[in-house]
């Protein structure tokens, strides 16, 4: 029965070639010489993770820590595909409803537990346990029916409907494999830390809250994916990540040699790095959705497509980005980030930066009068749109950007953009009560389709435009149902054409990026393929 099902699935089967090799984009190493083993490194990071349990992962800024000690079944290559990691390959059967993974048989967790199909099942069972990881259960695993241990080296995922995003989940931190023994034994399971054992090239052995986290090399490690840069154990003996929240302090610590690498260098501090001949600066564009303004179409004024178009035309995005980010930001033209294989390049230059057209559109939409302060009005009501930002989640100077946009749209088209930066509770209340017209967001999902499902599906968990479009839902379903890259690309292109082009539901602003600055003695630093965030420390070395 099982054999025949697998054979029948041969059409849809995708089998990995272990030789499939896509090199990691290196950003440092010219001055660091050939890789050397040994030594230690101190890396100052901006964000202290709220949890070290990969299943609970929710901060893209914590991703570089996760992969030091945990690994997933697959990993992303740099072309939108997947490479074997703890799995050696997979087959798709039953019309995309069954994914069967062959697992490596030479892998052990750092606590001595063997990695096998039962371990994979134990991880999924844990994720589905009530109250443990509700977000993962409700989003990434919503189409999962069951997990079947076929034999110790084979595990099958049965789905309720075809869902290629399963592969994205199984290459994500939430899908990382944790030793089943430590899952049972941990006293603070959801917080993670030294209690949880993984299979990664490093072992988390010390965490001082508010200060640093320390990893030591896993000497038994010998199962790096093909794009990791080398094989065998990691180069570094140990690595310390120090939490320094102030960017100027991180930069100062680097320039004075107290740390060798820093992550998170805002535009205002980048000149200090580039002016120093002993340091390098590199940037990686993140995956997922671009940082965009979403228009709330459930009530006036943005229920009128002309007003949405007018808002976009009223704004010269390049000018405001240059003003706020001093030329370090990459303009976005679509809701999908420019590094995604689904990105629709044809949208570039098709809208925006045309104040004259904006004014004509607003006149046509009935917002033809002006009040004493120069804002447009209709039937005595001012053209006011509200953007509510939650203070704990404001980053990348997005509050400053909002103020700049506020000034720009007022000047060019008489639109009153009201920006308020409030606490999380007030922000959530504004969203639930539908007291907003603009919603800002960027998502760091590695598969842009996952972000679009949340943002655009009529029942999406972050659908703030209020769009309920059956055709759009069908397209999103189509993009999720197939593993065929060309079909997926066609579906997501069509979605972007509708959402960004035709319906102007969204105003894409910039593609978020991450920055690494390092002493030139450090080699092997890179950004993770697809995700575009700083890579883990597996391939990093320090010149002696």
């Amino acid at each position, binding site marked *: 029965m099982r054999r025949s099902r697998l054979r029948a699935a041969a059409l849809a089967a995708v089998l990995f070639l272990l030789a499939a090799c896509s090199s990691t984009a290196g950003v440092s190493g010219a001055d660091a010489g050939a890789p050397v083993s040994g030594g230690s490194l101190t890396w100052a990071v901006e964000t202290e993770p709220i949890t070290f349990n990969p299943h609970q992962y929710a901060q893209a800024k914590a991703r570089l820590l996760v992969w030091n000690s945990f690994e997933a079944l697959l990993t992303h290559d740099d072309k939108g595909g997947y490479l074997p990691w703890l799995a050696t390959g997979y087959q798709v059967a039953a019309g995309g409803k069954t994914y069967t993974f062959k697992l490596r048989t030479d892998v052990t967790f750092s606590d001595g537990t063997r990695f096998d199909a039962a371990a994979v099942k134990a991880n999924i069972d844990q994720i589905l346990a009530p*109250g443990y990881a509700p977000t993962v259960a409700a989003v990434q695993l919503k189409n999962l029916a069951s997990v079947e241990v076929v034999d110790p080296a084979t595990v099958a995922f049965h789905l309720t409907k075809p869902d290629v995003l399963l592969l994205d989940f199984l290459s994500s931190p939430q899908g990382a494999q944790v030793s089943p023994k430590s899952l049972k034994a941990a006293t*603070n399971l959801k917080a993670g830390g030294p209690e949880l054992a993984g299979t990664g090239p490093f072992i988390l052995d010390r965490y001082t809250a*508010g200060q640093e986290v320390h990893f030591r090399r896993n000497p038994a490690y010998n199962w790096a994916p093909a794009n990791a840069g080398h094989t065998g154990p990691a180069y570094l003996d140990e690595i310390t990540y120090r939490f320094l929240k102030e960017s100027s302090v991180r930069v*100062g610590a680097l320039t004075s040699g*107290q740390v060798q690498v820093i992550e998170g260098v805002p535009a205002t501090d980048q000149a200090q790095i580039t002016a120093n001949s002993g340091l390098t600066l590199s940037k990686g564009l993140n995956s997922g959705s671009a940082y965009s303004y979403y228009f709330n179409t459930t009530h006036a004024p943005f229920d009128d497509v002309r007003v949405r178009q007018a808002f976009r035309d009223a704004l010269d995005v390049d000018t405001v980005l240059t003003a706020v980010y001093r030329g370090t930001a990459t303009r976005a033209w679509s809701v999908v980030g420019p590094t995604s294989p689904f990105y629709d390049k044809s949208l570039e230059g098709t809208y925006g930066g045309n104040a004259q057209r904006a004014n004509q559109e607003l006149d046509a939409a009935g917002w033809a009068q002006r009040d004493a302060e120069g804002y447009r009005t209709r039937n005595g009501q001012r053209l006011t749109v509200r953007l509510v930002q939650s203070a704990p989640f404001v980053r990348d100077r997005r509050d400053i950007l909002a103020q700049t946009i506020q000034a720009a749209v007022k000047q060019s088209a008489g639109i009153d953009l009201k920006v308020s930066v409030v606490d999380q509770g007030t922000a959530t209340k504004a969203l*639930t009560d539908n007291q907003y017209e603009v919603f800002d967001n960027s998502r760091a999902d590695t598969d842009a389709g996952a972000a679009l499902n949340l943002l655009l599906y009529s029942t999406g968990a972050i659908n703030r435009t209020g769009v309920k479009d059956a055709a759009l839902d069908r397209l999103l379903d189509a993009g999720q149902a197939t593993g065929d890259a060309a079909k997926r690309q066609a579906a997501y292109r069509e979605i972007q054409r509708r959402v960004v082009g035709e319906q102007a539901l969204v105003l894409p602003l910039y593609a978020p990026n991450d920055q690494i600055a390092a002493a030139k003695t450090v080699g092997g630093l890179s950004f993770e393929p697809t995700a575009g965030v700083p890579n883990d420390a597996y391939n990093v070395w320090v010149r002696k």
Partner: protein
Amino acid sequence: MTLLVAVLRRAVAGLVVLWAAATAAYLALLAAPGDTVDSIIGDGADTPLIRSQIVREWHLDRPAVVQYLDYLWRAAHGDLGRSYLLQRPVRDVIGEQVWPTLKLALCSALLGVLLALILAVLTRRPWARRVSSTVELVLVSTPPFLIGIVLLSVFSFRLGAFPVSGDRGFAALVLPAVTLALPIAGLLTQVLRDGLDRALEEPFAVTARARGLRESAVLVRHALRHALLPAVTLTGWLFGILLGGAVIIEQVFGRPGLGQVTLSAVTSKDMPVVLAVVVLSAAVYVLLNTAADLANLLVDPRLRRS
């Protein structure tokens, strides 16, 4: 016997203050917009299923009064609950951060008071006073954040004399302690100097001088005692400065401590941690005020007689 009653009365009053602080904080968090589920979800995915699981996990479906009474009951038994955000027992979260903050607070308080005493006594000449009070005014009005960054860039980034971050030995404590001590020293010096000026004009100063005491002895042995009284009363203020300052100093210097815990707990509405911090602060405040009262007894013999 009277002593025992006095101590008991103090203890009961302290407990009432703790209860009031916890209740006030609880009510404030309850009144803040958005409910607990909202703050746990943050800016992530939000579906009914996710919500119901969170509600079940933290027992948020009970009426607020029941949750409050349950909290009090467990707190009275030493169980402060689990952090919504960090998923660890609050006792651990707070426990491991108390010592780094305490170390910082003690060092800065000591340094600040010492500096203030020295400055107030030594800068009696008109020109020294002028220079000193200008500096004090600048220190009091400069945000600690700025002082920290300036000290860091000079002594850590440029001269490499002290490490930038962490709770790693004495050297790492110097810059944060100095940063926090300077504004304290600034204000205390002004208060002390003012007290000294007044005391030196009192008749007893004249009497002391007439007995042939040297001016420095009059200053230190007699006038300083009087000047200390208003300064001791400032202990409560000092505590506020230390706690508030710790939030910023720990952030700038990458130090572990209660300040950082408080900041993240407040911004994410992590109720159990916020409540614990409030109760802890109230407890310390009660202790400090008691200590201040006792210190006043030592400084001022008149109080002992009554």
